[in-house]
C-alpha cells in the first residue's frame, strides 16, 4: 500500500504543478500549446478506454467530438441555450451515438479491422450528413459569438481555456484510474485479451463493449463543446475530420495503450516534436516528414509505447523444452 500512496503523492504533485504552471508562463503560445496537449490527451484517453482497455480499435472517434460540438452549438445559436448546460447535452448526445454505433456493430459481431472501418464509415456518414442538412449550417458552418463568461464556457484569457482543458484531462485520468481498480475495468481487459474466455466466465461482453463506447462517446461530446467555445466556428470538415480520429489513436499508441498516462505522454511528445520540427525547419512540408519519421521510429521500436518502454519489463519465464 505504501507503493500506492507514493504513487498518489506523485500524482497530486504533478497535478499541482500543472495547476500553478500558468503563473510562471507568460507566453500565450506556450499556454495554447499546453491547452492543445491536454485536449488531445483527453481525446486520446477516450479512445484509450475502448481501444486500449477493451481492445476495440475505432477509426472514427471524431464522430462523438463532432456530434457533441454540434449539439451544444446548435442549442446555443438557435435557442440561446447556455453551453454550461449544453455541454451536458453534448455528453448525452455523444453517449447516445456511442450506444447506437456500439449496439449496431458489436451486436453483429464486428471486431478488429471491421469495427475500425465501420466507425470510420459512421464518422464520414455524419460529415456528409452535417454538410447537407440545414440546421448545422451546412457547408457554411456555424459561427458562435464571443461573449466571455462561465455560462458560455468562454474565457477572456487563454489561461481560462488552459484550465478548462486541464479539468477535462483530470476527469479523464480519474475515469481511467477508476477503471484500473474496478470490476468493469477488469472485464474490459478480459475482453481485450480473450473475448470467448471472458464470455465463458460470465462477462456480458456485448454490454461491456457498449458501455465502453458510450463512455468514449460521452467524453468526446464534452470535447466538442470545448472546441466550439474556444474556436467559435464549426463546419463539417472540422467537426468530423479524419485527422482528429487519427490523432487520438496516435497519441495513445505512441504513449502506451491501456495505461493511465499513455495518452498524456503521447500527446506531450507528439505535440512537442511537431512544434520543434515546425520551428527549426523552414521548408514547408518538411517538418511533417520529420514528424512522420519520428513516428515510424517510435512505433517500430517501441510497440508498447513510451510508457511500455520505461516500465520495468516483467521477467518472462519461457519453457522451450516443455
Amino acid at each position, binding site marked *: 500500500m505504501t507503493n500506492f500512496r507514493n504513487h498518489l503523492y506523485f500524482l497530486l504533485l504533478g497535478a499541482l504543478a500543472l495547476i500553478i504552471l500558468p503563473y510562471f508562463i507568460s507566453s500565450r503560445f506556450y499556454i495554447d500549446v499546453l491547452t492543445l496537449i491536454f485536449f488531445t490527451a483527453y481525446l486520446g484517453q477516450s479512445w484509450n478506454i475502448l481501444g486500449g482497455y477493451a481492445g476495440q480499435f475505432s477509426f472514427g472517434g471524431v464522430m462523438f467530438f463532432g456530434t457533441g460540438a454540434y449539439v451544444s452549438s446548435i442549442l446555443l445559436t438557435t435557442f440561446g441555450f447556455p453551453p454550461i448546460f449544453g455541454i451536458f447535452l453534448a455528453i448525452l448526445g455523444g453517449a447516445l451515438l456511442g450506444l447506437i454505433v456500439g449496439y449496431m456493430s458489436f451486436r453483429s459481431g464486428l471486431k478488429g479491422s471491421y469495427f475500425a472501418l465501420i466507425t470510420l464509415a459512421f464518422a464520414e456518414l455524419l460529415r456528409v450528413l452535417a454538410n447537407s442538412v440545414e440546421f448545422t449550417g451546412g457547408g457554411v458552418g456555424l459561427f458562435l459569438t464571443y461573449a466571455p463568461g462561465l455560462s458560455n464556457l468562454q474565457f477572456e484569457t487563454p489561461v481560462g481555456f488552459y484550465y478548462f482543458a486541464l479539468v477535462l484531462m483530470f476527469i479523464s485520468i480519474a475515469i481511467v484510474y477508476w477503471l484500473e*481498480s*474496478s*470490476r468493469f475495468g*477488469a*472485464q474490459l*481487459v*478480459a475482453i*481485450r*485479451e*480473450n473475448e*470467448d*474466455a*471472458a*464470455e*465463458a*466466465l*460470465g*462477462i*456480458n*461482453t*456485448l454490454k461491456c463493449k457498449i458501455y465502453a463506447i458510450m463512455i468514449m462517446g460521452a467524453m468526446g461530446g464534452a470535447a466538442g463543446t470545448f472546441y466550439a467555445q474556444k474556436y467559435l466556428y464549426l463546419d463539417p470538415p472540422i467537426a468530423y475530420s479524419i485527422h482528429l480520429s487519427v490523432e487520438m489513436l496516435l497519441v495513445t499508441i505512441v504513449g502506451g495503450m491501456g495505461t493511465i498516462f499513455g495518452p498524456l505522454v503521447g500527446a506531450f511528445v507528439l505535440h512537442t516534436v511537431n512544434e520543434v520540427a515546425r520551428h527549426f525547419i523552414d521548408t514547408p512540408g518538411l517538418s511533417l516528414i520529420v514528424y512522420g519519421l519520428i513516428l515510424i521510429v517510435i512505433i517500430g521500436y517501441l510497440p508498447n509505447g513510451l510508457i511500455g518502454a520505461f516500465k520495468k519489463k*516483467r521477467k*518472462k*519465464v*519461457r*519453457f522451450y523444452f*516443455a
Partner: protein
Amino acid sequence: MLKVNNVTKRFGGLVAVSSVDLEVNEKEIVSLIGPNGAGKTTLFAMVAGFLKADEGRVDFENASVLGMRPHQICQLGMVRTFQITQPFAGLTTLQNIMVGAYSNTSETDLARIKAEEVAEVVGMTSLLNQGADGLTVAGRKRLELARALATDPKLLLLDEVMAGLNPAEIDDIVTVIKGIRDRGVTIFLIEHVMKAVMNLSDRTYVLNDGKLIASGTPSSVAENPQVIEAYLGHGAAEAMAEGA
C-alpha cells in the same frame, strides 16, 4: 441437474452430434469419452451456449438454457473450460482468476480474496504474480480450472484438462478435481486419459461419430465391444477376446 435431450448439430452435410441424450446428476463426476472428432467438444459448446443446437433441448436445473448466451449460463452456475487453453495472456495468474471471481462480486478486495482461495485449491498460490503467458502447459490447464472455479459454479464442464500433462501432473490434477467435487461441485468432463477417467468418474458416456454408443460405469464401458471397436477399429473386440 443437467439434461441433454435429443440434441443434434450439423455443420453443412456433417452431423457432428446426432440425437444425443444424457444426464448429469448432482454431486456426480460424469465423463464423456470418445475418439478424436467424435463431437465431444461440440456437445460441450452447445451445452455452454457457445453453439446453437439444431435440434433438441438442454436443461439445467429444470430450465431450458437453449438460446442463452454463455455469460448467462455461467451466471446460472454452469461454466466450461477450454480444451485449447484460453488464458488472458497479458495478465497475471491472480488477475486471470479474479476475472472469474468478479462474476459474483463487484468488490475488488473480495474478488482478490476469492481468487487467492481458489488458487490454493488448485495449487497455484506460488504462481499468482506470474504472467499467464509464462505458464507451462500444466499451469495453463490449472488456470482454466481455477478461473472457472472462481465463478462458484454448480456444474463444471471440463474439456480435456489433462491433455498434454505428464503422469505426475495428471495425478495432481485428479486429486484437485476430487477435492472440487468434495466441495459440492458437480463435474462433467471430457477426457482422453483413461486412467483418470476410470479413477474419477461415477459414470461415463461414450460418443462416436456424433452418436452415443455406450454409457454406464467406467469399467463396464471399457469392456463394451462397441467401445473397443470405436477406438481400435472393426474386429478389434473379437481379436482381443481371442487373444485373452
